[in-house]
């Protein structure tokens, strides 16, 4: 949402918007979609004009719109506690029904950020240590096992340059084998039976360059020359 975007500065925001926009392009009309915080939050505003996508927020909103332009309803916030609006056709409900949606397989897609994704689709995105000084999981584990598809939107590497795509996660898992696709600043990668499969290269990058920045074997997807 705009509120999140507003806190980022120029180049960082542009890079993140590139990833988020790539995700947004792949969401078909009519899907019910939950967005995690960080890059995923940006996806909502980047859905192509005229395509109706229903955004769900786990605190009890379906049909969430962008940040308010004028008057703010303080009772309407998203999962990141930022003020939002409602689109026509929106509905409001409690946490039991919200997580029945999420855990019952009714969310077509959840886009999450990640610390690490393994080549088997294991996701680590909630804790950087098993001795976390103040662990916090929120709805990540529910979304990871409950949504029909988990797509990850993240930078390909950490700020220190380490690959976030790995053979095996070193951080505590959010859920095993849940990730179907990864969108990064370098490539779009499917998680398949044989592991990571690059289906698209971003901004003129080569397959070899992406492999250099990836700590697990990459396979060439069918569409890739």
């Amino acid at each position: 949402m705009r509120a999140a975007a507003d806190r980022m500065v120029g180049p960082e925001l542009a890079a993140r918007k590139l990833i988020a926009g790539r995700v947004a392009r792949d969401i078909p009309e009519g899907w019910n979609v939950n967005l995690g915080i960080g890059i995923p939050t940006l996806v909502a505003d980047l859905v192509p004009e005229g395509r109706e996508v229903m955004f769900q927020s786990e605190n009890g909103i379906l049909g969430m719109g962008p940040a308010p332009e004028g008057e703010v309803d303080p009772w309407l916030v998203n999962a990141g506690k930022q003020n939002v609006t409602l689109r026509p056709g929106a509905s409001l409900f409690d946490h039991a029904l919200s997580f029945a949606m999420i855990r019952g397989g009714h969310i077509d897609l959840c886009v999450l950020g990640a610390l690490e994704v393994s080549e088997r689709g294991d996701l680590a995105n909630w804790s950087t240590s098993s001795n976390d000084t103040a662990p916090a999981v929120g709805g990540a584990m529910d979304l990871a096992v409950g949504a029909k598809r988990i797509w990850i939107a993240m930078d390909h590497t950490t700020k220190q340059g380490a690959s976030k795509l790995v053979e095996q996660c070193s951080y505590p898992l959010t859920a095993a084998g849940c990730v179907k696709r990864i969108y990064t600043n370098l490539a779009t990668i499917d998680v398949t039976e044989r592991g990571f499969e690059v289906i698209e290269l971003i901004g003129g990058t080569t397959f070899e360059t992406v492999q250099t920045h990836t700590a697990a074997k990459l396979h060439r997807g069918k569409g890739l020359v």
Partner: protein
Amino acid sequence: MIDKQVTSLADAMAGITDGSVVLVGGFGQVGHPMALIDALIEQGAKDLTIVCNNAGVGRSGLPRLMKLGRVRKIVCSYPRTAAVFSELYAAGQLELEITPQGTLAERIRAGGAGIGGFYTRTGAGTLLAQGKETRSIDGKDYVFETPLRGDVALIEAWEADRFGNLTYRGSGRNFNPVMVTAAALSIVQVQRVVEAGTIVPEAVVTPGLFVNRVVEVPYAPPFAAIEY
């Protein structure tokens, strides 16, 4: 544009296959989707498992579907509402899974909410717990119950919009908002379809994401369609 409305009852039934598990809303005739059941009779699917609190009333609707030999099994709490059921059951032509009403609702909710099973005190120590896993929790006996899902749900609601958001009238809610969450294909008969944005977000009882198809059926009170 998202639009879940289909224009005919025949379209609403498209793709229902033989052997389907069909969740049917309603408590007695209230909230019972008579037009959809008639359409299912027309559509022809057979070897069905019907999950419904009752076995219908009179001779139309579910009793007719049963009489036509299209129902293999019925899962319900109180089937003794239709003579047809009793005849077929006595003749061994219908399987019956009797489930306490609250357990039936909770099993369907569990099916819709991704719960793998739960423990309830209802039925503990009775005939209906025979063969089921039991567990003592805080000194009380509980029975393990499994989730219940349908291939199809036939639902009656009051109003819908093109997103599939639903409201219900009076005691017509009953099993409908629960069953609509627990089927691969949820088909809803409504009294009227309204413009998007007409239903206040706080007043939506079933958010549209649970609904696949909406069909508008001209106003008919619950008892109007029954043939006794």
